[in-house]
C-alpha cells in the first residue's frame, strides 16, 4: 500500500497524456499519465474535475427540503442521496424507528434503484468490454454492438433497468428525482394496481438476474489469468452489514476488514462514523481521500461497493443470491478476492439479491398500508448512511433552532473508492502501457479498470455514447507528437 506513481519527482521532463473525459462512466473525470521518452510511466492520476458545492449551498435551507434537493447530485442513483438524507433527518425529527410500512417502502425504492443501477452499469456500460475484449473494434464496443451480437442479453439489460425504474416511480412518484421519502417516513404507499403491475414481471426479473450472474461468472472463470490480476491491488474494505451480518443495502452497522479479511471494526453505529473515518485533501483533485483513523493516511484507505459488501457480509438473506455468494467465496479460495474485475461478478450477485428482495416485498401487504409517518423529539444533528449501488454513502447534517441547515458533510461512494481507483489505474498503466506505443485499445484498459468500480463522478451526464475522447502526446517543448481522437 503505497502511493507509487502518484507524483513524479521531475514532471517537467515528462510528456503528458490525458484521457479526458473518461467514457462510459457516470459524470466527468480524466486520467493523466506522465511518460518519459521511452514511454515509461512515471505518474498516473485519476482526476475528478467537477466542483459541485452542495455541502455549502444547502446551508441556510430548511431541513425538510434537503432529501429532494441533494438527490440532484446524481441522475443515476438519486434515490441513494434521497434516502441517506432522509435517514439523517429521521434522526433530526427524533425518529429512530420508522413505521413498518415506511421502512419497507423505502427499502423497496432503494432495492429498485440497486436493480436499475447495477443493470445499467453491467449491460450498458461494461458488457461491451467484457463480451468483446478490452481492445476490440472500438466501433462495436458499445451497447449497440452488444444488441447486434447478443440481442437477448441486451434486451434483458434494458428490461431489468426499466423494471427497477418502475419500482422507483411507484414509490417515489417519478422514475428520476421523486419525492417519496420525507423525514420520519414516506409520503405514499403502493396501490393494489401498482403492486400487481410489478408482480406480473418480477419472476422474469429474478430469472434474468440469475442468468446475468451466470454470464459474468462464466466470463470471469474462463480467463482467470486476466480477471484475477487485471488492475489488482490489496486493500482494506468496508460496508454496512445488517442484522446477523446479512448483506443489507438500506440499514445496518459499519464493518471493516483488512486485506486478509480480518475484522478491523464491527457493529459501529454510523452516527459515530467520524470516530473511525477521516478525509484527506490532496492538491490535485476535487475529490477527497478518506481513510480509517486508526490506521492512518498511508495504509488506512479502503474500498467499498459490491466487491467489499459481498465479501464483508456473513450471508445473504435470499436463497438464489446466497447460493451465488457461496460460489464466489469458494472461487476466491478462503481469502478476499481483490481483483477489480471481480466487482462485476459481485455486482450481479447483488442485482439478483435486489430482485429477490423486491419479490418478497411485493408479497408483503405492509407496502399497501396507510401508516406512513412516525414522530419523535426534535434533535439538532443526524447522520444517515446507506449502501448505494457504488458503495457506502454518508450524509451528515446539523440544523439550528429555526430549522435551517448549518452544516453538511457528504462522503459519497466514489469518494470512498478514490484511492482504490487510483491504485487500479496505476497497476494497469504499469502492466500494459509501460514502455509501449500508446493506442486507443491500451488507453481503454485504463478505462476498463475505472469502470469496474462503477464510479459516479459526481453526477450523471445522460450523454452515454456521445463523450469524445481525445488523447494528445506532446514532447517536452509542448509540440504535438501523436494524437488519437474518438468521436
Amino acid at each position, binding site marked *: 500500500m503505497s502511493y507509487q506513481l502518484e507524483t513524479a519527482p521531475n514532471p517537467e521532463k515528462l510528456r503528458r497524456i490525458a484521457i479526458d473525459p473518461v467514457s462510459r462512466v457516470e459524470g466527468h473525470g480524466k486520467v493523466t499519465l506522465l511518460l518519459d521518452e521511452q514511454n515509461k510511466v512515471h505518474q498516473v492520476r485519476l482526476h475528478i474535475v467537477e466542483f459541485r458545492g452542495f455541502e455549502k449551498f444547502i446551508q*441556510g*435551507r*430548511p431541513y*425538510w*427540503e434537503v*432529501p*429532494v*434537493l441533494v438527490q*440532484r447530485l446524481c441522475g443515476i442513483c438519486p434515490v441513494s442521496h434521497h434516502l441517506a438524507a432522509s435517514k439523517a433527518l429521521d434522526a433530526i*425529527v427524533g425518529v429512530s424507528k420508522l413505521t413498518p410500512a415506511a421502512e419497507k417502502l423505502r427499502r423497496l425504492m432503494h432495492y429498485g434503484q440497486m436493480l436499475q443501477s447495477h443493470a445499467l452499469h453491467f449491460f450498458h456500460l461494461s458488457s461491451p468490454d467484457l463480451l468483446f475484449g478490452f481492445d476490440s473494434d472500438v466501433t462495436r464496443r458499445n451497447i449497440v454492438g452488444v444488441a447486434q451480437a447478443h440481442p437477448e442479453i441486451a434486451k434483458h439489460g434494458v428490461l431489468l433497468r426499466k423494471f427497477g425504474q418502475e419500482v422507483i416511480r411507484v414509490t*417515489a*412518484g*417519478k422514475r428520476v*428525482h*421523486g*419525492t*417519496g421519502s*420525507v*423525514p420520519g417516513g414516506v*409520503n*405514499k404507499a403502493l396501490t393494489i394496481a401498482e403492486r400487481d403491475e410489478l408482480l406480473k414481471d418480477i419472476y422474469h426479473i429474478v430469472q434474468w438476474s440469475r442468468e446475468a450472474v451466470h454470464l459474468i461468472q462464466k466470463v470471469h472463470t474462463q480467463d482467470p489469468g486476466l480477471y484475477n490480476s487485471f488492475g489488482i491491488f490489496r486493500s482494506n474494505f468496508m460496508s454496512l452489514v445488517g442484522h446477523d451480518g446479512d448483506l443489507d443495502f438500506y440499514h445496518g452497522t459499519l464493518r471493516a476488514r483488512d486485506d486478509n479479511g480480518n475484522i478491523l471494526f464491527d457493529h459501529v453505529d454510523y452516527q459515530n462514523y467520524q470516530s473511525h473515518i477521516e478525509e484527506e485533501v490532496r492538491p490535485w483533485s476535487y475529490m477527497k481521500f478518506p481513510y480509517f483513523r486508526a490506521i492512518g493516511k498511508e495504509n488506512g484507505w479502503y474500498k467499498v461497493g459490491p466487491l467489499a459488501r459481498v465479501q464483508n457480509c456473513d450471508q445473504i438473506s435470499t436463497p438464489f443470491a446466497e447460493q451465488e455468494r457461496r460460489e464466489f467465496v469458494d472461487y476466491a479460495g478462503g481469502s478476499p478476492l481483490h481483483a477489480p474485475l471481480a466487482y462485476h461478478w459481485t455486482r450481479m450477485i447483488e442485482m439478483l439479491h435486489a430482485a429477490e428482495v423486491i419479490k418478497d416485498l411485493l408479497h408483503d401487504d405492509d407496502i399497501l398500508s396507510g401508516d406512513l409517518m412516525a414522530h419523535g423529539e426534535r434533535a439538532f444533528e443526524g447522520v444517515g448512511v446507506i449502501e448505494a449501488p457504488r458503495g457506502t454513502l454518508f450524509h451528515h447534517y446539523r440544523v439550528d433552532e*429555526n*430549522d*435551517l441547515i448549518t452544516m453538511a458533510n457528504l462522503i459519497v461512494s466514489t469518494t470512498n473508492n478514490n484511492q482504490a481507483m487510483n491504485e487500479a489505474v496505476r497497476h494497469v498503466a504499469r502492466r500494459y502501457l509501460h514502455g509501449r506505443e500508446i493506442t486507443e485499445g491500451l488507453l481503454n484498459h485504463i478505462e476498463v479498470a475505472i469502470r469496474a468500480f462503477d464510479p459516479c463522478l459526481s453526477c450523471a451526464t445522460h450523454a452515454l455514447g456521445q463523450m469524445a475522447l481525445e488523447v494528445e502526446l506532446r514532447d517536452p517543448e509542448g509540440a504535438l507528437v501523436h494524437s488519437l481522437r474518438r468521436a
Partner: protein
Amino acid sequence: MSQTFTLDGDSIPFADGQTILQAATAAGAFIPHLCYHPEFKPHGSCKLCTVKVNGRQTASCTMRATSGMTVESNTEEINAGRRSLVQMLFVEGNHFCPACEQSGNCQLQATAYYLGMMSPHFDHFFPSRALDASHPEVLLDFNRCILCSLCVRASRDVDGKNVFALSGRGIRTRLIVNAASGRLADTDFSPTDKAAEVCPVGVFLKKRRGFAVPIGERRYDKTPISGVPEEA
C-alpha cells in the same frame, strides 16, 4: 345577466360592475393571472391577464366588461408576451422548481407550463435574498417572491394587521415585514392569517410540512392550470 361580450369568439355573459377576468372566470374561461385573487380588489400589476379589447391591450382584471366588446386572449401574440413576462419573473427571483416544495402547487410554475415556457430565456439575476425562519410555524422564502402583493392586501384588508409591505422602487422593490427587527417572529402574524394562504408561489411555507403531498396528488398534477377551478 343578459349582457354579453365575446372572448376569443365565445359569448361571455356578465353583470354590471364585473371585470372581464371576473366574468370570464365565472363562465369557465381561463385567462392567465398571478396577482389577481377573487377575494381581493384587483391590483393590475403582474400584467399576465393582459388581453386585447377592440384591438387595444389592457389588463382584464381591472377592465370592466361592457356589452358587445370583442376580447382576444388566447392568441399566439398575447401568449408570447405573457411567456416573456413569466420568464422575467423566473430570472428576477430564485425559482428552483426541482427542490421547491411548492412544485406542483405553484401558480407561477403551472402558468409557465400552460404558456409553454421551455427555458428562462433571459440571464438569471440570482439575487441574494435571506430566508426569514424566525417564526416557529411559518418560513418566508423571499427568493420566490413575485411582488404580487396578495399577502400585503390580505394582511391589511382581511387580517387587519399590516404585517407585510412592498418597499423600494423599480428593480429594487422587495417584500418586507413590518417590525423593527424585520423578522416575522416579532410581528402579530399568525399561521391562520389569510396572508399565510394566498401566496401564488412558494414564499409562505408551513414549517416541517415539506413534501408531504406525493407527486400525482398536487394541485396541478392532473389538470393544467386552465382547468383547475379558481381558489376562493
